[in-house]
């Protein structure tokens, strides 16, 4: 069971760093991917993660108003809102996609979110979008 986390380099990733420095524990099956801005996360990245077997995808960006690129996080949240609705429409749990706002200082929030997302993913079966036939998923 794996969770892919797209973390904004300016805030959420820095938050994860702070959590690491502060020796706060968070589950190891969260696989962080650093992105320049959460707005960079294209729906295809999220779907690709699910296709490759991730149970859940977390997209974490700056708090509204704090985006380094002015409104990348707002665009991300709109995009993910729509994507969640669409996958739900197809019969896939919308909880597979999680959106959070975590600032660089919120180490505690990061570890809590990470734990919550992983626990939530553990409660679900494998994603229906996983391409079982491809046999490439370690």
């Amino acid at each position, binding site marked *: 069971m794996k969770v892919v986390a797209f973390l904004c380099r300016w805030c959420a990733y820095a938050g994860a760093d702070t959590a690491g420095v502060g020796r706060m524990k968070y589950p190891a099956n969260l696989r962080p991917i650093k992105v320049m801005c959460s707005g960079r996360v294209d729906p*295809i990245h999220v*779907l690709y993660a699910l296709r490759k077997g991730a149970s859940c995808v977390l997209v974490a960006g700056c708090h509204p108003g704090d985006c380094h690129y002015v409104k990348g996080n707002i665009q991300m949240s709109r995009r993910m809102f*729509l994507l969640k609705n669409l996958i739900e429409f*197809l*019969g896939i749990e919308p909880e597979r996609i999680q959106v959070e706002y975590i600032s660089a200082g919120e180490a505690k929030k990061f570890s809590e979110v990470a734990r919550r997302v992983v626990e939530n993913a553990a409660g679900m079966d494998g994603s229906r*979008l996983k*391409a079982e*036939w491809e046999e490439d998923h370690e």
Partner: protein
Amino acid sequence: MNEVSLENVDLILGWQKGELVAKPFIAKNEEDIPKLIADFTCSINLVRFLHDLEFDGKAGIFVKGCDARSLEMLIKEGKVDRDRLHIIGVPCRGVVDAKKAMRIIEMEGLKSPISVTDEGDFTLTDGNKTVRVKREELLASCCLTCRSPTPQIYDTLIGEPVEGSKDEFKDVEEIESLSLQERWEFWSDTLSRCIRCYACREVCPMCYCKECLVDPTNVVVTPKTTAYEKANRPVWISKASQLQENMIYHLIRAMHLAGRCADCGECERACPMEIPVRLLMRKAEKDLREIEARLAAMG
């Protein structure tokens, strides 16, 4: 077609008579003008052909209400130059869906050639046998919920404006009322049929990208493209027609068209496997409208 002339335009992109439904047609000479038609058989959205149409000066184009919506969006996106177009608007009372007609023809055993006439309801006849069909049964599905059958942008309008109906997204709500499991069953049944012929994409006026994200073979290669670039292009989904790959294809298409889709229904009419492609676009449209309404209410 008295309202139409080649005086100020190089050519006119229009429709000509075809069996069952009209064919796209380019009128270049005065003799071509009488061949142009604009009626209930003109289902094809001609706006798509503007992307690779070559002409000097101006071109005339026939648009129905839905076609005009896609044209408007393309103008907004800078893909089409409004000043080079002479838009001939055609208020539309709905168009025939060829696939629906063919199903009736097969069922009734009609023989080609078949003529269709619009008398409130439709009449199909091959000379020997005549079949009357209820209007809703033959109209393209998008026509049943069309909000603006009269083009919103035009230079010439042919005929009287037609009142639109209120779109209540009943088809979307029907799916939404199902449980997650039921929805999954519905979509896995329909989307596993997809053969990835990409007709829905190719026929769509809004799908003009030279390089499509989901099609691993369609990459733009110029003499300057480096080997590194070609070698490292991500292949997001495979070419296999597997349910998951098909789903991601349709999800991505819906995401890319959200808020841009004119609901002309071409994708659905083009689909040889009768996948309700429109439904996904309409779901996105409905959600976006709800957000808009909510934001407006918040002031």
